[in-house]
C-alpha cells in the first residue's frame, strides 16, 4: 500500500509519497524532494546517472526501493555533497579540469567517486578507473574525469 514516509535527505527530514514500497528512490528524490541532481538514465542500474549515497555507500537510486529505506538512513545527493558556496573538493576539481561535456552522467560520476575516495583517499589511476568502471559516459569525458578525481584526491 502507498504510504507517506519521512526520509533523511541531505541532512534534513523530507516527507515523500504517498508512494508504494516498490517506488524507486530516484523518483522520490526528483519529484517529491525536488532534487534533480540524480538523473534518470536507464532505470536498470546499468549506467550510474542516478547514483546517490545511502549511509555513505554509492547506490543506484533508480533501482533502490522505498521499502529498503528508513528515517535513519542518510541519503545524500550531489546537491548535498557540496554547493557553489561550499563546494566538495570533487566538484571544484571537475570545474578546474573542465571534466564535463553534456554533464548528464557527471553527478553520478561525482557521487561514485566521492564514495570510493572515502575508502581509498589516495587512489592511483588504475584504482580510479576500477572505481568508476560501472558508470557510463557517452561524451567520452573519461580522461578528464580521471584527472579530476586524481586532482581532488591530492587536495
Amino acid at each position, binding site marked *: 500500500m*502507498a504510504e507517506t514516509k519521512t526520509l533523511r535527505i541531505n541532512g534534513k527530514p523530507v516527507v515523500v509519497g504517498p*508512494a*508504494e514500497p516498490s*517506488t*524507486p528512490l530516484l*523518483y522520490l528524490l*526528483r*519529484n517529491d524532494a*525536488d*532534487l*534533480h*541532481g*540524480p*538523473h*534518470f*538514465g*536507464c*532505470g*536498470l542500474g*546499468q*549506467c550510474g*546517472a542516478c547514483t546517490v549515497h545511502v549511509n555513505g555507500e554509492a547506490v543506484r537510486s533508480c533501482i533502490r526501493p522505498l521499502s529498503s529505506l528508513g528515517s535513519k538512513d542518510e541519503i545524500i*545527493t*550531489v*546537491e548535498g555533497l*557540496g*554547493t*557553489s558556496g561550499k*563546494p566538495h573538493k570533487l*566538484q571544484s576539481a*571537475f*570545474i578546474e579540469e*573542465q571534466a*564535463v*561535456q*553534456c*554533464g*548528464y*552522467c*557527471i*553527478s553520478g560520476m*561525482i557521487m561514485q567517486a566521492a564514495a570510493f575516495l572515502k575508502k581509498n583517499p589516495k587512489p592511483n589511476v588504475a584504482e*580510479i*578507473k*576500477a572505481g*568508476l*568502471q*560501472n*558508470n*557510463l*559516459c*557517452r*561524451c*567520452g*569525458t*573519461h*580522461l*578528464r574525469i*580521471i584527472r579530476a578525481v586524481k586532482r581532488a584526491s591530492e587536495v
Partner: protein
Amino acid sequence: MNADNAKTFGRRDVLKGGGVLIVRFALGGVWGAGSTGRVSTGRVELGPYGPAEDQVDSWIAIAADGRVTLFSGCSELGTGSSTGLLQIVAEELDVPFERVKLMLPDTNRTPDQFVTSGSRTISIHSRPIRQAAAEARAALVDLAAKRLKVTPEQIITRDGVAIVRGVPNKKVTYAGLIGGREFNVKITGKAKPKSQKDYTIVGISVKRWDIPEKVFGTFAYVQDVTVPGMLHGRVVRPPSHGARVLSIDEQSVANIPGLVKVVRVADLVGVVCQREEHAIAAAKALDVKWSDWAELPEMKDLHRTIRGLPEFTSGYPKEAPGGVLAKTGDVETGLAQAAKVVRATYLSPFNHHGSIGPSCAIADVRADGVTLWCGTQTPYGTREAVAKFLGLTNDKVHLIFAEAAGCYGQNGADDVAIDALVLSRAVGKPVRVQWSRADENGWETYKAARISECQGGLDANGKIVAWDARTFGMSGYSRPGYHEPKHGGEPGSLVTAQLAGWDKPGLEEGFSGAAGNFNPVYQDIPNRRVVFTYLGSASHRQGPLRIRVGSMRGVGSPDNIFVAECFMDELAAAAGMDAIEFRLRHLPFDRGVTVLKAAAERAKWQTRPSHSQPASGDMAFGRGVAVVGTNTETSVAGIFEVAVNRKTGVVQVQRVVIGHDCGLVVNPGAVRNQIEGGVIQSISRALKEEVTFNRSRVTSLDWASYPIITFAEIPDEIDIVLIDRPDLPPMRVGEPASETVWPGVANAIYDAIGMRLRRLPFTPDRVLAELTRS
C-alpha cells in the same frame, strides 16, 4: 514578414519566463534566478520564424546595469559551443566575458538559426552573431561620440566603456548609453568585425558557463523542466516496427493509482498519471493487442539486403547525377594496366546514439496556444512541424529549447515532443513524457549501416593508377526541420507522427550529408570513379528496410573515411610502403600534409611498411593512421597505437595522437575536450557497438545488449597537436577528429596482426576469426 503572424513580444520579462510561471527551468543558464535587473526593455517584432535577423535587437540586449544578453538560435548540445559564442560577443563588443550571458533558442525570443548540427555553431552560426555584435558596438561608438561631442573615430571601447582616445576621463559606459533601451539599428553589414589578430577573449580557454551548474546538480536539463500542474506520461510502443493496434484493454490499468487517462491516436499509445512511477507502472501493465509484423531481414543478411535496396534516384543533387562524386580517366583501363590490383569490401552496422539521458519533452496544449519544452536541434523546424501536426499556425506554438543529455545527432528529442503534445492535448494539462531506455534505443534514429566496394590498382613504382569505389548509403538527414537557408518543418520525418497516423512525407535532403567526403582527398590518382549509391531515408514505419536512419556525429563521414582511409592503407601495404609516406606521395591537400607531419612527429612515427614488426607472445602491437579534411575545412590526422591480444582477440587502443587544424581556435580547452570526446566515443563504436535486431524489431534495448566503452577500455593518452591558424576563420570541431578513428584503428590492427578487419565493430570474435584464418 507575414502580417497575420507578426506580433511583438516584450522582452521586459525575460527573467520571469515570459508570463509562464515556472517552477524549475533554466533560461539557458543565464542571468539565473536571484539576479536583479532586467535583461532588456526592447520590443522585437516576431515573424513566423521569430525575431527578424536583420535587427541588432534580435540578437543583443544591454540591460540597465550593463549586462549583455546574446539571443542565440543555436541549441547547446553539451559541447560547450555556446561558451564560444559568448566569447565572440564579448570580443566584438569589448565587454568582459563574465558580463555576457545567453538566451538559448526560444521561438518568442531568438532568431532562427535553422539546425544546430554538423559542428557548425562556431564555424557557421557564429557569423551573424559576430556581425550583430559588431553592429551593436558601432552603434554604441556613434552614441558615445554624440554624447561626448567628438567624432566616432576618436572613441575607443574597453570593458563596456566608451572612452575618448587620449582623454581617459572623458568616457561613458554602455549602460549609460543604451542600458535598458533598444538599439533600433538595422544590421547593414557595414560594421566591420575586429581583426582576428586583435582578439583577446577569443582564443583563450575560458571556462564553460554551464559546468558549475552541472557539477552542483542545479542545471536544468529538459528532463528537469517542471511546470505547475504537470502530469507524467509514458508511451507504449509497438512490439514490432510495423505492428498496428488491434485493441486496448483499459481494465488492465484500472488499479493503477492516479491514472488520468489512457490515450490512443492511431498507433501512438500512451498513459498519463499524477505520479511518474505510476505512469511507468501503467505503461508496463497496459494490455495492448498488436498485429504481428516480422518483415525485417535476418541480421546476418543485413548487408546483402542493403546492397539490393532500390536506389533513391530523385535524391541525387544536380552536381552528382547518379551519385557519381568523381569520374576522371578510365578506371577499367587503369586496373587492366596495373601491376597490382587490390579489392576490398567494407561493412558497418547501425549505431545507437546512446545518449545517457533518454529523450524527454514537456507540452502544455491549451485552447489559446501551445507551449513545448524540447531538446531539439531544429527549434523553428520542429515548431513548424508540430504546429502542422496539431493543425495550428506557427504563432500558436511557443517552443522553448532546453538542453538534453548529449545527443550526437538526431535521437528521439523531436519525436518525444509529439508524444507529449498528444498526451497533453488529450488531458488538457501540461504533460511530461520521459522515454524509457528501451523507447530510446528502440525508436530513435540510427547511424545507417553501410556496404562499400573498392578496387584499386598500383603501377610497378607503387603509385595508385586506379581508384574505383562504390558505397550503398542511406540518408543522413531525417530531421523535421531544414538546413539554412530554408525555414520550416515537416512532421512526416518523425516516427511518432507516423505512429499517430500522419501519412505525408517528411523532408528529404539527405544525400550530401551522407556522401560528403567519400571521394578520397588525394589528388594524384589518374583514373578515378567514386559513386555513392543513395538509398534514401528509412523509418520503422516506412520504406523497404524498416530500420530508422538519421544523423550521428559526422553523418556519412565516419563511414566514408573508414572506407577511403582503410583502402588507402591497403594500397600502401600492397606497395610495400610506409602508410604516411604513401599518403604524402599521392599529394594530399596542403593542410592535410601539415597535420600528418605534425601528428607523425609527435607520435615518433617510424617509417616502415605496415605489419613488419616481429610478433612476440600473445600480444601484438601496431600503429595506424588516417587523415580527413580539405584546404577549406578542418583537417585532422589521427595516429592510433593498439595492442591486440591474439589469444582473446581483444583490441585495446593505448595511445592516440591527433594533429588538428580547425582554423582559428576560439576556445582551446573546449576544442580539446571535444576532440578527446569524439575520439573516445568513436573508439567505442569501432570496437564494440552494433545495433542488433530480429525479424520484428531492434533488440539492443539496454546497456547490456549494447555495451559502450568503459573506463577500463579507454586509451591511456590522447595527445593533441592543436595547430592554431588565426589567419583563417574558425572551422568545425566536434566531428572531424572522430572520423579518423575507425580507419586508424583498423589500420593499426593490420599493422599488429597482418589481418584486415573490414567489418565494424572489431569485436574479439571477429579478430579471432581473422587470426584463425591466417
